[in-house]
């Protein structure tokens, strides 16, 4: 029963996110432009950031501002499952799109006799998937706190801070800040001998912490049509 609910929520989110003409069209245009860029630069282009922001923005906040969430929570739906479903839906949708784009790029490069080794393509897909699920967890957390698409704006604003402020707050703090906003696992840097356990734990602790905070914030939310 619980998996059926989870699946229904994920499919509903996919439909809502990918079948909107504007956003779906933008995603497709962006994927094809990345494939063209790969042909020009002769290397794989990672489309993960823009796609995650396009598809992941307002995953919960849009439901609040459009009035869907108060209606949804009148049903016996466990709120933590709702948050997890949103995260999984955004993460899986962007991962599939990114993987297809990277495979398309690899194909284009191979046809131009600039073939990228299969291991490199696999590592790029792995890194993209980890980045997608990492950034999605942060976006879901922000989206629970803010309505509509303000989560993406907050993410963009906060990611500029370390670029400007690393001279004032120190390199280490700026790096940790960046690692929080952009959790990612690079295959060779993480899993080649010796395994970089700090990277592994940093990534998974950021993801679980963001999801935890998102669930706790949703649990505290009092929703009604009157509260807007």
């Amino acid at each position, binding site marked *: 029963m619980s998996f059926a609910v989870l699946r229904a929520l994920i499919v509903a989110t996919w439909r809502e996110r990918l079948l909107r003409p504007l956003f779906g069209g933008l995603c497709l245009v962006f994927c094809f432009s990345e494939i063209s860029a790969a042909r020009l630069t002769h290397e794989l282009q990672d489309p993960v950031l823009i796609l995650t922001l396009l598809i992941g923005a307002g995953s919960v906040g849009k439901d609040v501002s459009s009035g869907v969430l108060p209606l949804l929570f009148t049903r016996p739906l*466990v709120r933590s499952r709702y948050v997890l479903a949103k995260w999984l839906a955004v993460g899986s949708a962007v991962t599939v799109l990114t993987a297809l784009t990277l495979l398309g790029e690899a194909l284009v490069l191979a046809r131009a006799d600039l073939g990228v080794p299969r291991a490199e393509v696999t590592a790029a897909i792995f890194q993209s998937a980890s980045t997608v699920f990492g950034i999605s967890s942060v976006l879901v957390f922000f989206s629970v706190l803010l309505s509509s698409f303000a989560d993406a704006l907050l993410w963009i604003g906060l990611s500029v801070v370390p670029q400007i402020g690393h001279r004032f707050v120190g390199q280490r703090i700026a790096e940790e800040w960046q690692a929080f906003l952009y959790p990612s696992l690079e295959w060779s840097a993480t899993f*080649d001998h010796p395994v970089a356990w700090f990277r592994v734990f940093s990534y998974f602790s950021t993801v679980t912490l963001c999801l935890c905070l998102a669930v706790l914030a949703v649990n505290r939310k009092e929703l009604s049509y009157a509260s807007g």
Partner: protein
Amino acid sequence: MRPGSAVSTRGRPTVLLVLAAVLLIARVGTGIYDARHPPPLGGLVKWRAPDDAAATAEGKPVLYDFSAAWCEPCKRMEREVFANPESAALIDASYVAVRVADEDQSAAAKALRARHRVDSLPTLVVQPAGEGEPRRLEGYAGRGSVRSFLKRALEAKQPTMPPLPELEGRDKN
């Protein structure tokens, strides 16, 4: 549904909370361990000093590593690239590696920093053997990006010198 039998929809995410706490503790622990066990200075690469004149006389491209002891991304690059046997072997086989530490205030180090206009750390510069344009990589975005930079720098075609014009009549003067 009978009164009192309803499952709370706001259940505390206990499993997620425990997992987050355990991972956070592991993160802090490994962070402290990494800080107390820094990689060997210089990693596995055979670095030359900036004033090593023989560095440019081996017919290999020269890899300059502009870094500093206080720079965290430099330390990460040290740990993940220069202390990695595969990467170190690639560098030693294909390049003459020269480290220019920020703490090094010798005339040679200053001249190299000025010549390559280094204003951020870490910066890698590959000076091809001969007359080619140097290639550079600023910042550290993971081992993969450094490795592909090093491979691209090797694959880059060396510009060929144009043939010297015939100096006819030179002997006549």
